[in-house]
């Protein structure tokens, strides 16, 4: 299968963006804002010239080609629809419209001007326009950021289905890990112009390369000093508590625990294989059929029914427990 090969350096204001990456299916670049994510897309599209290296598609060197010479479908963050052209004319600008309006469910909007469209509609027009270009590579810059929470989940599943159907090498950029995990086959974590880790969403959660990656994927991150003892590693937390991990490490470490691996008890059960942290209940937030509970420094995720059974109220005291096998140690 044809793929996009990136290996370049681009000097940015605060740091150098340096990237080596092969894109075969959908790769999401995630990271904090200002990490250089959008610049990667601009280099692939030919809108920014790298100081070193190459951009190649299927063995074809694109590095020196102007944007119009590359076959990329670029969906901009604000969608960049031409305000003086109707929906149909926007799509036709890039090439034959064909059945694109029907495929993206915007046929009834064909004669509407972009100024009158909602966020979700704009996004679909921008996608249709990018596809009218008959692109070899799809570039999506924060495709869901401009949408409200309600529209977002629906558009996300539509987009996911569309990307799967197209089967194009796709590079998408987002600051939201959940969006990345649901849309992409591989997720690259970009921080200060460097790729910290590139892995499938599952691998990223299972073995985060460092503390930043872990916290980005939604894990609890605690700090402590590790010391080997017997078959387990003992870590003394900043607050004085001790937790155990099956990972091997010494010195200052980050302790990574995922919310769904933390269970909650109202009384202390003495079980040496279990890590127990006592804390005040800080917040109780319902998300669908789950409840996120903050206990001291740790966030736990439990089902609504068990949350109800435990009578979790803010200000009360509870014990967060998690297994040593579910406690990962990462370099800081």
């Amino acid at each position: 299968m044809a793929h996009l090969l990136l290996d370049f350096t681009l000097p940015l204001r605060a740091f150098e963006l340096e990237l080596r990456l092969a894109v075969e299916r959908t790769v999401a670049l995630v990271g904090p804002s200002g990490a250089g994510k959008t610049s990667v897309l601009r280099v692939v599209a030919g809108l920014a010239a790298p100081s070193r290296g190459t951009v190649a598609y299927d063995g074809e060197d694109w590095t020196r080609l102007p944007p119009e010479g590359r076959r990329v479908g670029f969906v901009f963050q604000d969608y960049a629809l031409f305000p003086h052209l109707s929906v149909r004319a926007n799509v036709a600008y890039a090439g034959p419209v064909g059945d694109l309006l029907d495929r993206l469910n915007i046929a009834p909007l064909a004669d509407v001007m972009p100024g009158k469209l909602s966020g979700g509609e704009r996004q679909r027009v921008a996608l249709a326009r990018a596809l009218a270009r008959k692109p070899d590579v799809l570039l999506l810059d924060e495709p869901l950021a401009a949408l409200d929470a309600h529209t977002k989940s629906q558009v996300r599943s539509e987009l996911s289905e569309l990307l799967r159907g197209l089967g194009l090498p796709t590079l998408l950029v987002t600051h939201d890990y959940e969006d990345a995990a649901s849309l992409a086959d591989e997720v690259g974590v970009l921080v200060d112009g460097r790729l910290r880790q590139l892995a499938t969403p599952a691998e990223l959660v299972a073995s985060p390369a460092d503390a930043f990656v872990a916290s980005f994927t939604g894990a609890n991150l605690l700090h402590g000093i590790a010391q080997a003892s017997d078959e387990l590693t003992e870590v003394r937390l900043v607050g004085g508590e001790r937790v155990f991990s099956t990972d091997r490490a010494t010195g200052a470490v980050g302790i990574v625990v995922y919310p769904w691996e933390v269970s909650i008890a109202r009384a202390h059960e003495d079980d040496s294989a279990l890590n127990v942290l006592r804390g005040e209940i800080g917040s109780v937030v319902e998300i669908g059929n789950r409840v996120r509970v903050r206990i001291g420094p740790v966030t736990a995720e439990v089902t609504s029914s068990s949350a109800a059974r435990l009578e979790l109220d803010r200000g009360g005291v509870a014990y967060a427990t998690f297994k040593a096998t579910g406690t990962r140690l990462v370099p800081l």
Partner: protein
Amino acid sequence: MIRRALVFLATFVALSFLALPLIAIFARVPPGRLLAQLSNPLVTDALVVSLKTTAVAQALVLLFGTPAAYVLARRRFPGRGLLVTLVELPLVLPPAVAGIGLLATFGRFGLLHTSIPFTQTAVVLAVVFVSSPFYIRQGIAAFEAVDVNLVAASRTLGAGPVKTFFRVELPLARGGLAAGEALAFARGLGEFGATIMFAGSLPKVTQTLPLAVYAAFDVNFDVALAIGALLVLISAALLLTLKWLTSSSTSRFRFALSSSS
């Protein structure tokens, strides 16, 4: 109470002062006689000269001013601020200085040694010199207002720089460009000082409508008034066009000064 009355009085004086000369042009002579004077050869000759020179001058303003405005709006280079100021200088320059400058450039003993002075070409050059800054300055603001993301989008969609200019940037800057051109047109039509110094006031050759007003008022005040009335009507029409252009929702142009940095 007294303060309010004073404010009203000041407003009344200011507005009357501006309106009275215009009203007087139409009030001094009955409309029938005004109309009759329009067939006077002095008037028709001047009208022909004005129309011809204005048409050529404004065509030149559009042809050269549009690329100039575009480059100054889109490119960042050392000395750009200086160039923008240079473009704006004729706006504040006394017309007599423009006239003497044009003579010093195109005169027989000028920098370029030409025989242009006191020809119709000289009228065109004078009009271009004083009116193009209005168009270019407004054009810079209009092109700057076009989102660079739209330009980038156009390029990624397969359009080269030329197609992008004609299909995206020019249509989006159109409102601002048209408003700038309306201002330049009005300024050029009324041009007097630079023209009389650089082109003279030869009937049928370089005598434009404003010059004809000046030439006629010694001889026949009615004719001067008739031409004046004609110019007031044309100017009013231009002003209304300008207002319509700037208020129409499709034109996103700003009436602001272009940044000179």
